[in-house]
């Protein structure tokens, strides 16, 4: 009896602790996805899992020329046929996920690290720091991304490190703009004024006030940015300037097998299709989240 009472009491206290019952409780930030959104999450999760465990489930090694001939249709356990060197297309797509998604993810993360750090710094410090970074940023933004990529690769050649670095710098510019705008918005809010009046330091304000409030719009933007980076990297690979053969990458796989298209081989279609599923799924998730949360700032600023 007492035991039961006690649990009830605890329950009430727990409930009060979450402030659910208070009239001015903040709205819950739970995101409910539509069925389209759920399928998209599943697709993205599927590719991420493939990235991690890919090599151990692929039927062949990415570089093994195991097939009977090049550009064959599906047969035996070559479920998607063979490519221009008689390698298993399915295995190369599975291995390629690592390169395509891995490189893009690394570039986007690096772009975010640079963009947010500089953006928040510019917003908080203002003055000539803001001026200086913003001008350089505008100059890079004024160029078509693919041109920047081509110029850098013409000068330095292509390697995975250069690809990641180039994509990160190019896309950090857009992240910078968003992070700076968000930071400036937040810096003039009353609660920041209050924190300043309390005598909190710059780093405390950034950590406790600015970053949590900028997190949600930035997270939505991360998805969009990742899509752009995937498209950028695979376009470069498609041009033969990205990931170099014999490593498998979805963009370069399309390029390699383009010839086969005229013989009716689908070897070029499958990797292109893989890219499409990944990027469309991310965009659908982002659409779903911004429709629900109204946080479409990131979308507007693209």
């Amino acid at each position: 009896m007492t035991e039961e009472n006690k649990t009830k009491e605890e329950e009430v206290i727990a409930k009060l602790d979450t402030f659910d019952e208070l009239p001015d409780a903040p709205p819950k930030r739970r995101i409910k996805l539509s069925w389209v959104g759920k399928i998209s999450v599943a697709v993205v999760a599927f590719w991420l899992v493939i990235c991690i465990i890919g090599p151990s489930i692929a039927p062949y090694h990415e570089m093994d020329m195991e097939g009977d001939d090049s550009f064959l249709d599906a047969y035996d356990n070559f479920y998607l046929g063979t490519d221009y060197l008689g390698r298993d297309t399915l295995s190369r797509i599975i291995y390629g996920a690592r390169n395509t998604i891995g490189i893009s993810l690394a570039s986007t993360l690096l772009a975010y690290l640079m963009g947010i750090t500089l953006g928040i710094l510019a917003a908080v410090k203002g003055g000539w720091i803001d001026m200086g970074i913003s001008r350089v940023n505008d100059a890079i933004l004024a160029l078509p991304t693919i041109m920047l990529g081509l110029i850098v690769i013409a000068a330095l050649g292509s390697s995975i490190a250069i690809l990641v670095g180039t994509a990160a710098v190019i896309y950090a510019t857009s992240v910078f703009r968003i992070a700076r705008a968000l930071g400036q918005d937040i810096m003039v809010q009353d609660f920041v004024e209050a924190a300043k009046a309390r005598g909190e330091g710059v780093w405390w304000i950034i950590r406790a006030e600015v970053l949590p409030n900028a997190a949600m719009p930035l997270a939505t933007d991360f998805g969009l940015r990742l899509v752009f980076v995937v498209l950028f990297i695979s376009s470069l690979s498609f041009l033969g300037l990205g990931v170099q053969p014999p490593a498998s990458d979805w963009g370069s796989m399309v390029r390699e097998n383009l010839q086969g298209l005229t013989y009716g081989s689908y070897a070029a279609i499958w990797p292109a299709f893989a890219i499409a599923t990944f990027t469309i799924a991310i965009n659908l998730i982002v659409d779903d989240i911004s429709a629900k949360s109204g946080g479409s700032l990131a979308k507007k600023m693209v």
Partner: protein
Amino acid sequence: MMTQMVLRRIAIGFATLIVVSIIVFLATSILPGDVAQIILGQSATPETLAALRAELGMDQPGYVRYFSWLGNMAVGDLGISKAGGATIASLIGGRMGNTMVMAGLVALISIPISIALGLWAAMHPGTWLDRVVTFGTMCTISVPEFFIATILVLILAVELHWLPSTAYLTGNESFTELLRALAMPLLTLVIVVSAQMIRMTRAGILNVMSSPYIEMAILKGVPRRRIILRHAFFNAIGPIVNVIALNLAYLVSGVVIVETIFAYPGLAKLMIDGVQTRDLPLVQACAMIFCGTYVLLILLADVASILSNPRLRQPK
């Protein structure tokens, strides 16, 4: 007020071009690829090398080379290609015409289609037709250009045999042959560019639709069709012109992919070949042309949106 803003924007555009030229020059000058060595080959004596270097101005400091490069470019002297030693101007000449024909045709076809579809989708928001358009364009902008191109080749060239799968020009095609060769690259670019334009036109109109004077018109009982065509459209013209200019600028990256996939002898193909052979003077020249066009179009977009804002017409 307005003239001032436009002039200011043009000045900024000009400054951007200068910065762009510095970026292009710096980026391509990081590695001191020795043009003299490449022209003369391995057997050249140090004396002839030094003489040629002096002749090409390679022995001068960076900023001197930058200004002479910029000056030469301004008067149309684009330098000499590393591969083969032909002048870059002669290499670029015909190629640029091909690319401009392609870009012009894409603009001519995609602008009316996009505005019509965008308007139409905005007139019927939430209907299944609107959803099809919104979803279709979203998918199109999410996939790489080469995905759309390969699918089109698969359907139109391989399965149906309607069109050739490459757009290689020999220079003496008949008009119909030219049209057939161009059809596939054109279609790819029209799809890519229109998708973006339709989305932005639709969003622009819907944005205007949420303003108070439209609400007033709705309350007066004006039919939705009339509201959009008489009230919303004219106020959305500014944003729409902006969208058109922006998207023509996005054509730059589309052109690079499409010219490669269809082997179309345009400027972008020339540049990609230059990147592959690391022919830096050629890459510099092409990059400047592409970036310059891009900056110019963005400038045009901004000026259009300044001119179309009636609030800026009256000095305060």
